C-alpha cells in the first residue's frame, strides 16, 4: 500500500499512526482505570461504569453552558473546572450508590452484575429525562480544537495530547494513592484479607465505600475528557463498556500494571490492524487474539495475587 509515496510521506504517516496508537492506549487506560480499581480491589462487576463516564460528560456540558452564559471570560479555561466537577459529581453519586445498593451485595457477586446493570438502565433514562433524548455538544475552547502542525506533513491532534496528558497524571495519582499512601495500604490490606484487616482496626466498610466512589470519580474524569473526542448523550457510556471490561479482564483483575499492559497491547493491536486491514476486521482479530490468550491464561496477563 506504500508504492508511489516518498520516504518522508511514509515517515509522517508512521509518526501520526504511532500517535494514534498512543492516544488509543490512553483512551483505553483512562476508561478502564476506574473499573480496574473497583473490579480489582473489590471484585464488584460494575455494569454502570459507562454511565459514570456519562456523568462526567454531562458535567462538562453543564459547565460549558454555564460558562457561555454567565462567564464568557472563563470559556478558555472552563474545561479544567469541568474535569474537577466531573470527578466530584461522579464520586458523590458513586458514594451514594455504594451506600444504598452495592454494600448489600458484596457476598453475591452475580447479583451485583444484575443490580448494576439495572442501575445503568435507570441512569440512562435519568439522563434522558433530564437532558433530553438528543445528543448535546459542549462548546469546547478554541485551543482544544484542531491540530498541532509539527512539520509540513505531521499533524498531531490537540485533543489527543490532552487525553495523553490527563491519563499520565491520573495514572500516577492512582499509583501513589494505592501504593504510597496510608489509605492505599488500607485498601490493599482489605483486598488481601478482609478479616485480618478488620482485626488490625481498619474500618473496611468505609474503605469499600471510598474505593468504589474513587473508581466512579475517575470514570467521571474520563467522561469529561472524552467529550473532546466523542459524543455526549444518554447512552454514550454504553459505547465504552465492552472495551472497558475487555481491558480489565485481559489485564488480570487485581493488577493495575496488568490493566496498563492490557490497554497498551489491545490498543496497539487494534490501531495497527485498523491501519493495515479495516475497522470491523481489526475488531474481530483483536477479540480473537484476546480470547485465545485468555484460554491459555484464564487469569489475564498478570495473574491475581489475591488470597482465595
Amino acid at each position, binding site marked *: 500500500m506504500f508504492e508511489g509515496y516518498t520516504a518522508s510521506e511514509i515517515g509522517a504517516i508512521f509518526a501520526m499512526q504511532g500517535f*494514534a496508537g498512543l492516544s488509543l492506549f490512553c483512551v483505553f487506560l483512562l476508561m478502564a482505570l476506574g473499573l480496574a480499581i473497583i473490579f480489582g480491589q473489590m471484585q464488584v462487576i460494575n455494569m454502570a461504569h459507562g454511565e459514570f463516564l456519562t456523568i462526567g460528560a454531562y458535567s462538562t456540558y453543564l459547565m460549558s453552558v454555564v460558562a457561555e452564559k454567565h462567564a464568557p471570560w472563563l470559556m478558555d479555561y472552563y474545561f479544567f473546572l469541568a474535569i474537577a466537577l466531573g470527578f466530584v459529581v461522579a464520586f458523590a453519586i458513586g458514594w451514594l450508590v455504594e451506600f444504598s445498593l452495592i454494600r448489600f451485595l458484596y457476598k453475591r457477586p452475580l447479583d451485583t452484575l444484575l443490580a448494576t446493570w439495572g442501575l445503568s438502565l435507570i441512569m440512562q433514562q435519568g439522563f434522558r429525562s433530564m437532558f433530553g433524548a438528543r*445528543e448535546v455538544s459542549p462548546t469546547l475552547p478554541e485551543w482544544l480544537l484542531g491540530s498541532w502542525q509539527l512539520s509540513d506533513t505531521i499533524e498531531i491532534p490537540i*485533543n489527543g495530547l490532552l487525553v495523553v496528558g490527563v491519563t499520565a497524571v491520573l495514572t500516577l495519582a492512582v499509583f501513589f494513592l494505592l501504593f504510597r499512601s496510608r489509605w492505599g495500604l488500607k485498601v490493599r490490606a482489605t483486598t488481601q484479607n478482609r478479616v485480618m484487616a478488620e482485626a488490625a482496626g481498619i474500618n473496611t466498610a468505609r474503605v469499600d465505600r471510598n474505593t468504589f466512589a474513587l473508581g466512579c470519580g475517575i470514570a467521571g474524569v474520563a467522561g469529561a475528557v472524552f467529550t473532546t473526542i466523542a*459524543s455526549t448523550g444518554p447512552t*454514550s457510556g454504553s459505547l465504552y463498556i465492552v472495551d472497558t471490561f475487555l481491558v480489565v479482564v485481559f489485564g488480570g483483575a487485581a493488577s493495575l500494571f496488568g490493566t496498563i499492559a492490557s490497554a497498551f497491547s489491545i490498543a496497539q493491536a487494534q490501531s495497527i490492524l*485498523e491501519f493495515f486491514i479495516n475497522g470491523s476486521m481489526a475488531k474481530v482479530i483483536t477479540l480473537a487474539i484476546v480470547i485465545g490468550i485468555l484460554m491459555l491464561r484464564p487469569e489475564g496477563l498478570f495473574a491475581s495475587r489475591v488470597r482465595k
Partner: protein
Amino acid sequence: MRRHIHLRWLALAAALALAGGATAADYPTAEVNTTGLAVTDDAVTVGILHSVTGTMAISESGSVEAEKLAIKQINDMGGVLGRKIEIIQEDGASDWPTFAEKARKLLVNDKVAAVMGCWTSASRKAVLPVFEKENGMLYYPTFYEGLEQSKNVIYTGQEATQQILAGLDWVAKEKGAKTFYLIGSDYIWPRTSNKIARKHIENVLGGKVVGEEYYPLGHTNFGSLINKIKLKKPDVIYSIVVGGSNVSWYKQLKAAGITSDKWTLLTISVTEDELLGIGGENAEGFYAAMKYFQSLDNENNKKFVAAFKEMWGDDSVIGDVTQAAYLGPWLWKLAVEKAGSFDIDKIAVASNGIEFTGAPEGYVRIHDSNHHLWSKTRIGRIKKDGQFDVIYESDLVEPNPFPEGYQ
C-alpha cells in the same frame, strides 16, 4: 396589523370551507369503513410507533413530534372525512421484537387505521410481516437503502439512489472529483448505499474508489482511518457513519486537521439532529446530500418551522427525517379522501400518484406504482451554528427502490 387580521379570517373561512366539503355525515361510517377499523362517526384512530426510550430515542423523538404536529394541524382543519384523528402511541424501545409486538397490538387490538412509525431498517423489517399479515398501513419516514416495496408501506423518505446519485453527480461536476474514499458504519444501510455509490462512481462518473471501509456501530476511535485517508488523499471523503460514532468521527477529523479548507467531505448521514451532538464547528464546510434542510427558503417550510417551534419549543431543530415524518399523516389524509374510504386496500391503491403541494420540502408525489416519493435532492453546506446553507437543488428524482445495474 389590520391586514394580518383579515388574512386570519380568510384562512379560517377557507378552512371551514374545506371542512364543509367533508363532513362525517357525507361519509357514513358503514360505507367508509368496511373492514372493522377504529373509525366512528366522529373520530378515527391512528398509531404512532417509535422509540422514545433506548438508544434510538435520540433519532426518533423528532419524528414523533412532527407526526403529532401534522395530526394536530389536520384536526384543526376539520380532520379526515369529517372525523378527528385520535392517537395511540406505543414505544418500540429501540428493540426490534418490541416493535413487532407493538405493531401487532396496534393493528389487532386497537384496529388503527394507519401507523406512523419505525426509523431504523431493522425495526421496519421486524414489523413488515405483521403489517402484511394483518393488512395495516405504515408510513415510514427514514431515508433508507431501498430494495423493498410493499402494498402496506408508504416510504416518505428517500431510497438510496435518490439520495446518493444526485449528490455524487454534484460533487463530480462542481469539485471535479475523481477519487473517492467510502466510509460507513458496519450494517445494511451504509453497505448497500456504498455499493450503489461505488457502481455510480466507477461506471457512470468514470472515477475511482481508493478505499472502502466499515467500522462497528459505536466505534469511537478513528485515528488509524484518518491516517489512511491522509495517505490516500482522496478528492472526496464519502461518509455514512451513524449514531454516537458520528460525533467521534467529526471531532477527530477536525483534530487531525482534516477540515473543509483542504478536503471535501460529502455525507448522507448528517442532519440538523446529528449536528446538535457533533457541534457545527467540528464539521463546518462539509457537505450533506438530503431532500430537506431546515433552512430551505420557501413559504411552506417557513410556516412548518414556525409551527414546529411553537409546538415543541424554540430550541427545536428539524432534520430530513423529521420533515419526512411530517408528510405521513398528510399523505394518508389525501389518500383517504381520494379513496373516499378508510379501507386499507383502497388507500393502498389510491395512494399511487397522489400529489402533495403543502410539503415543507416543496412539491412531492407518490410514485404511480412503488409507494415511494418523487422528491428533489439538495446539497447543504454545514454552518458553524449547526444549520445548512442549501447550495444546490436537483430536479424531482424518480424513486427507484430496485435499481438495475447497481446491485
